[in-house]
């Protein structure tokens, strides 16, 4: 019988990009652009669908061939063009839901560029020990975003 426990954690990451808010926002709003920076290592088999509107769903699924399938399954709860995105998602490892997380992305003008502030507030379920992996993974994604914006 599963022992039911929860752990709650919040992290905030701030990044500066030398690109205007509209360009940063577009990298989130357009699936073709987003697929170029959002996701696991290139050798993972992956699929990614997105309906970028309030109430719309985004699913990103991937993993090493023959290995654990990582699935992010979420819904958009607030979108303010060029300014704010609020998204709530489940993370599943194979069939097990390990967490539910609320992600807030704010994009603020900073001179000719932008400051991006990402806040994630989450509940981790039934003994799953995140040990900072989610925050590390997010740092990696935001670095990938920066590389994409500069192409």
């Amino acid at each position, binding site marked *: 019988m599963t022992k039911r426990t929860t752990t709650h954690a919040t992290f905030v990451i701030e990044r500066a990009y030398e690109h205007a808010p509209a360009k940063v926002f577009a990298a989130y709003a357009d699936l073709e652009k987003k697929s170029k920076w959002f996701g696991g290592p290139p050798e993972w088999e992956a699929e990614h669908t997105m309906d970028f509107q309030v109430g719309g769903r985004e699913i990103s699924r991937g993993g090493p061939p023959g290995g654990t399938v990582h699935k992010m399954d979420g819904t958009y709860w607030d979108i303010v063009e060029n300014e704010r995105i609020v998204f*709530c998602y489940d993370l599943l490892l194979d069939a097990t839901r390990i967490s539910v997380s609320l992600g807030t992305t704010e994009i603020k003008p900073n001179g000719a560029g932008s400051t991006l502030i990402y806040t994630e507030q989450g509940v981790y379920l039934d003994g799953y020990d995140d040990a900072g992996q989610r925050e590390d993974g997010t740092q990696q994604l935001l670095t990938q975003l920066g590389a994409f914006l500069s192409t």
Partner: protein
Amino acid sequence: MTTTTNASFVLERRYSASPQRVYAAWSDPQAKRAWFVEGEGWDIQSFDIDFREGGTETSVYGFRRGEEVFGEKTVFSNETVFNEIVENERIVFTYSMARNGRRFSVSLATLEIKPADKGSRLIFTEHGAFFEGGDNVTMREQGWQELLGKLDTFLAKSA
């Protein structure tokens, strides 16, 4: 220009009702409506609940003191999605609040029900994104304190 405050709170309460009864107050539509939606100063326009993982709950209610407090006729709506349900033990849900159609917060809430001496212990944790022009986290915490008090009254009445 948008502003957002992300904040969290935890509330804990004891009830002299079994975990099954506490859980039923959340899962049964009539019960939920009675303690969560009905209240003095509110005109309920609609309440719909589909209590299952991925299901939704929507309530729309007129605030009788709208003109006094906001200077206009005021209707609030709450849209909830149930992310995870473990019978008698845990409910994880996401909900937004809107005033006159404009969303002012999105929150991730976890409700845990644990057996305790002579009843249950309820732990309610909310992680919220609070937007410009709306509630702040202190007001939200107070709101839930009141609701968990109403739950207590409801459970005692229907014992």
